[in-house]
């Protein structure tokens, strides 16, 4: 029996889809059988981030409406063994699915997969309620900004009222140079305000843009900082005790060299 994890945030654009794609791929790299579920019905994006947009035949709503069997809608990622995607419908809206249907879908997927990762849409309406319905645990993604942290706080409250306790936090797009200068809230500042457990931190990394351009999750690139951060989170979710990575800005010899030569 697998575990259903929902990736949520409240605010849009903080990195839910990127996080879903990287954690899912990370689990697959660890040999786990994973399915990524895009719950953002009407605004699907996980397919393009994963580079699987050309392979969609059926989607989530086709499954819940009974137009196809669940197995027919699952897209197998050929690059990574044991990684699958269940895409969102693009031509329907959030009300096309009910929380009960989502719960049923998650229960079914759990039978077959080690991890079911649900990419939640932004907002707190129907789409959010659908996405969290079948989740065993929740991961909240935020960035070190007032608006994102505020929305994260709201989501924590809403998860609590839906009986989803102890969500874990990922702080995304940390810029160490700005934190050092006192111009960006630090991890400690954010944890102090939200008072929840930290699951991991992801540094701001240009490579995320490159990987999204290519449709290849960053986690497969061995030299990207964000990749290491995502790998650490995957291992923590699998029960390992991995210390938080120390994000240093341009301190490695290689980076200094790059800076000198203005590369």
């Amino acid at each position: 029996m697998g575990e259903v994890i929902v990736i949520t945030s409240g605010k849009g654009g903080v990195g839910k889809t990127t996080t879903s794609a990287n954690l899912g791929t990370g689990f697959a790299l660890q040999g786990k059988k994973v399915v990524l579920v895009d719950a953002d019905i009407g605004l699907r994006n996980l397919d393009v981030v994963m580079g699987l947009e050309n392979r969609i035949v059926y989607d989530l709503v086709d499954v819940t409406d009974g137009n196809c069997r669940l197995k027919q809608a699952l897209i197998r990622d050929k690059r990574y063994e044991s990684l699958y995607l269940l895409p969102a419908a693009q031509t329907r809206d959030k009300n096309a699915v009910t929380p009960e249907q989502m719960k049923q879908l998650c229960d079914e997927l759990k039978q077959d997969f080690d991890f079911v990762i649900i990419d939640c849409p932004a907002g707190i309406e129907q789409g959010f309620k659908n996405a969290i319905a079948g989740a065993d645990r929740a991961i909240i993604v935020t960035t070190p900004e007032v608006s994102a942290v505020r929305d994260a706080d709201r989501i924590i409250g809403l998860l609590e009222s839906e009986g989803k306790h102890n969500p874990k936090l990922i702080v995304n797009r940390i810029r160490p140079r700005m934190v050092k200068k006192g111009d960006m809230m630090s991890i400690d500042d954010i944890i102090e305000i939200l008072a929840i457990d930290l699951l991991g931190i992801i540094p701001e990394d240009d490579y995320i843009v490159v990987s999204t351009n290519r449709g290849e999750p960053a986690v497969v690139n061995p030299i990207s900082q964000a990749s290491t951060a995502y790998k650490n989170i995957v291992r923590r979710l699998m029960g390992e005790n991995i210390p938080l990575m120390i994000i240093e800005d341009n301190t490695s010899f290689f980076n200094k060299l790059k800076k000198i030569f203005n590369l």
Partner: protein
Amino acid sequence: MLELIQKLFGKDSNSSKDIAKERLRLVLVHDRVNVSPQLMETLKDDMFKAISNYMDINEKCMEVNLTHTESSVTLVANIPVTSMKRGAMSKR
């Protein structure tokens, strides 16, 4: 002079992250208590009614606010009393 140098090197004592933190804290107090302006008005009305049984107060000058301290939320009411009601004590 030192201040200028510190500013040049970005060591502003009033760093923007402290501003962010303080603003967040304030906004979250209100978000978390989930108090709409209407709710505050209803509370004010109820308080006015209850207190009016014992003393005359000026509703217009009545101030009821939620304020936050380091770790808690406090309801602060500032209610000017015009006079005590004579009957109030003997009723008990």
